[in-house]
């Protein structure tokens, strides 16, 4: 499918806003991009999802440049979480061919409401020096699930990874956001690679969204340091609730 230059400019503009938002909160920005591209710009879900995954990669790389420089990213803890996210991404691509997207999106919306509520009521957090093995197991399962959702819906998976680190490990919000921003890059790359092989990745659509989101990610990562952990968590919770409504709207309209 060929796109009018105006459509590509609109995609770049939306990506710019989504990039700022994603870099600030450690999510990929795909949660904004996919609904807008499909719902407002009339782009097919398969191509919107693939372009969104490319912009998730750019958000991740752009944010990681800043976070790694500041030494905020917890690479040691990211390692054991990265493998299950990639496994999830591969499983998600397989499931995408057989599972009804409306069912997945509905379940996803419900999950977002629960996690957003938990983050809103959570008070204070400290980083435990030793994490019990059972928590690592649950974190692994959650990350596989995050990878599946990333691949199926074209989102980064930060919606799952950030709460996993803050709620299960007690990681500080900014460290969790930075580590999540790092994790989503590899997860989205695995999914994007699969979709690129399947011919669903439109070059100009991908470049437009990637260009816009890179600039936005730089802004978002810098602004994140100016906000307190509590405030960031509240913003994140409300963004998640808004995303859940957007997703449900897509389900009702039959866009998923």
């Amino acid at each position, binding site marked *: 499918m060929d796109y009018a230059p105006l459509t590509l400019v609109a995609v770049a503009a939306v990506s710019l806003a989504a990039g700022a938002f994603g870099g600030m909160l450690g999510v990929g920005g795909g949660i904004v991009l996919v609904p807008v591209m499909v719902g407002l710009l009339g782009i097919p879900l398969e191509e919107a999802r693939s372009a969104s995954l490319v912009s998730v990669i750019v958000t991740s790389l752009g944010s990681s440049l800043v976070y790694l420089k500041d030494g905020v990213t917890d*690479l040691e803890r990211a390692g054991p979480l990265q493998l299950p996210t990639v496994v999830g991404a591969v499983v998600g691509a397989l499931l995408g061919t057989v599972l009804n997207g409306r069912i997945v999106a509905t379940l996803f919306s419900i999950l977002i409401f629960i996690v957003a509520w938990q983050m809103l009521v959570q008070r204070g957090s400290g980083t435990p020096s030793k994490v019990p093995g059972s928590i690592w197991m649950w974190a692994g399962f959650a990350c596989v699930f995050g990878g599946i959702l990333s691949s199926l819906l074209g989102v980064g998976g930060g919606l799952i990874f950030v709460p996993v680190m803050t709620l299960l490990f007690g990681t500080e919000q900014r460290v969790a956001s930075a580590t999540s921003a790092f994790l989503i890059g590899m997860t989205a790359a695995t999914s994007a690679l699969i979709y690129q*092989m399947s011919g669903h990745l439109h070059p100009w659509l991908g470049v437009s969204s990637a260009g816009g989101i890179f600039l936005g990610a730089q802004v978002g990562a810098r602004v994140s340091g100016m906000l307190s952990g509590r405030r960031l968590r509240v913003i994140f919770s409300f963004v998640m609730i808004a995303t859940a409504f957007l997703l449900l709207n897509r389900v009702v309209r039959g866009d998923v």
Partner: protein
Amino acid sequence: MSELRGDIVRLPVFFGLSGALLAALIPGYQDLALSILVFTPLCVAAVTGVTLIATKRYGSGFSFLLAVAMAVAIAFWGGLPR
């Protein structure tokens, strides 16, 4: 995570983004730009894995390398059966 290790991991990020930007600006090379972008996180994860192993964080390091191996294997297969 020391500053040195963070700097090493930032190198492939910087080169990947620069390479993709350069390719995106040349007409007809947008596909190459996307390919560079898609493979950059794999390089970043590989460098991170090796760096962690070099500093005796074997669990985290091998986890990163295994994730990269899985993605590379998919690339060699040419995607998943559909």
